[in-house]
């Protein structure tokens, strides 16, 4: 709780941004996001787009896992559904960019609802493993259907928006980042509504939630649907960003990546989802930079991918053992320190 923010009405209490300090920081962040493409190099812009896509997808998974308490290892599969829908629409039908993205989200949502059906009968780890099944089944469909181009996949032309082809990271940035921000804002707002609060009730104790009159099946499916809608949109953006979609683009490891991102960031916190996705996307790149600096040449580069695997696993284990509430909690601690800073620490 911040000092000096007196709340005099329920509206003020439920407001999304409640203090001037917070608003100032958000404005500064927004300004930074606007300025970034003009100062950053192509490589960093590429990373920024990738981070934005991952943030969107991780936020979606956070709705499902962090807020509704349903563990899913199918996020990559839903992204794949979105990406393939976008690719097929773009290549075979030629519908406009935003329609494709939305359709990608809708198809993924449908997939999510179907995968969510077992969630009424099974929960916890059984459910997590059932979603692994979903990821294998979608992989099989992608790899063996004529429609999806088999194992070679599909490569799509750049999208056009208002007559401009979106073919550079700079141009894509202006599409991907606003969409991502809209999605994150939507998720943050969701938990101020009836539906969002129902999700939280289900997470805390699903049987109690049912006793309170929350229809479990409907809300669990809704949560699955929303989460995979986010994944589908993120997958659609992914397809436009990389412009090649293959069955191998969305492996189980990617689902694990997103789950790891929200764990490292902090489950059940929008900020956590963002921090986690940013952190987990940037750590492998940082490792690459470190490896570039280290002497040893090609022998060392062979080690890069296994070292990434080890670091990835260590981050998951380390955060769970030492910092179970994730980066969001670290951030909160830092903030608290500065609230009272020079007077008490």
């Amino acid at each position, binding site marked *: 709780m911040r000092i000096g923010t007196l709340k005099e009405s329920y509206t003020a209490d439920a407001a999304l941004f409640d203090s001037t300090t917070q608003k100032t920081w958000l404005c500064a962040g927004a300004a930074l996001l606007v300025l970034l493409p003009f100062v950053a190099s192509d490589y960093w812009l590429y990373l920024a787009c990738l981070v934005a896509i991952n943030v969107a997808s991780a936020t979606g998974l956070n709705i499902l896992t962090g807020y509704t308490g349903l563990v899913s290892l199918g996020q990559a599969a839903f992204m794949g559904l979105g990406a393939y829908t976008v690719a097929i629409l773009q290549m075979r039908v030629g519908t406009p960019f935003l329609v494709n993205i939305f359709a990608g989200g809708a198809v993924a949502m449908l997939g999510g609802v179907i995968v969510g059906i077992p969630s009424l009968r*099974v929960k*916890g780890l059984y459910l997590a493993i059932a979603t692994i*099944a979903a990821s294998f089944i979608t992989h099989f469909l992608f790899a063996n259907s004529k429609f999806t181009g088999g194992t070679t996949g599909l490569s799509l032309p750049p999208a056009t928006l208002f007559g401009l082809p979106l073919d550079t990271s700079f141009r894509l940035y202006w599409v991907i980042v606003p969409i991502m921000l809209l999605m994150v804002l939507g998720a943050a707002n969701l938990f101020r509504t009836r539906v969002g609060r129902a999700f939280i009730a289900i997470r805390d104790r699903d049987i109690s939630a049912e006793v309170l009159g929350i229809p479990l099946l409907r809300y669990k499916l809704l949560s699955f649907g929303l989460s995979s809608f986010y994944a589908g949109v993120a997958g659609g953006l992914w397809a436009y960003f990389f412009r090649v979609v293959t069955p191998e683009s969305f492996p189980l490891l990617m689902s694990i990546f997103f789950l790891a991102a929200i764990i490292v960031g902090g489950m059940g916190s929008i900020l956590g989802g963002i921090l986690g996705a940013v952190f987990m996307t940037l750590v492998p790149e940082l490792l690459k930079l470190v490896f570039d600096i280290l002497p040893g040449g090609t022998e060392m580069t062979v080690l890069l991918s*296994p070292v990434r*695997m080890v670091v990835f*696993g260590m*981050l*998951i284990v380390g955060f769970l053992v030492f910092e179970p509430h994730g980066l969001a909690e670290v951030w909160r601690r830092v903030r608290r320190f500065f609230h009272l800073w020079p007077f008490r620490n």
Partner: protein
Amino acid sequence: MDWAYLFEISLTGVAGGGLYALAALAFVLVYKATRVVNIAIGEMLMIGAYIFFSFAATFALPIWLAALAAVLGTGALGAVIERTMIRPLLGQPPISVFMVTVGLASILIGLVEIIWTADQRRLPEFLPNTPVMIGDAFLAPKVAYGSLLALALIALVLLLFRFWRGGVALRATASDQGAAYMMGINVPRVFSLAWVASGMIAAVAGIVVGAIGGISSSMGVFGLSVLVVVIVGGLDSVLGALVGGLFIGLIEALAGAFLGAEYKLLATFVMLVVVLMIRPYGLSGTHEIERL
């Protein structure tokens, strides 16, 4: 329909299923005692196989000594995992512990690639090479002897469970932790024991799997099928693990023979979804009753 062919395929499937049953036993052991879903079971298999490879091929030790080293090494690994990763998370939500094992899987794969590189390796031959004929059906010798080895080990483990003091302590802890504490059983030590035993069994399973199909850093995929086996059988049921193992082995072999190799994993996972929908707690798992 060629009945002889069907018989041969089924036989191979059941024999392969013996290995699933063994690996599933390693999994169920940990789950029963500590309620931890160890998704890294495939990777523990892999570590066992690689330690065996190091001792048998690189240091050229006799096979039995190398196998012993692999079993002990993986058992020690199990103990280390339990002390450093699982013990600190006692009492945390099961999802956290589950994710720790996911992280562990990633660490183990990375370590294997750093130490032994990502190349596919072949284990030295140690299983007899004479073809096995059952009636008219031919069974690949490695698969046949491998599954015999697996079945022998399963029998040994079951006997240990039944009669050895530690095994009884393990079963007591599994059925009621509080009561086990009151009877003077050192429950944390039973947890360690379960992980050590699980590691040892996984090492044997890994050596046999590696002997049949070679070893590589992606061997952990075997663990996914094992996961399906234990879910189908019921997470906390030894009998379920055995039956489930044979069943999934059979399904995989049939799908592979009649539909094509790419249908193998699909068939197992479709089976998983079907079982989850009909019997969410598996074929013979405990049906948990939830209370408020």
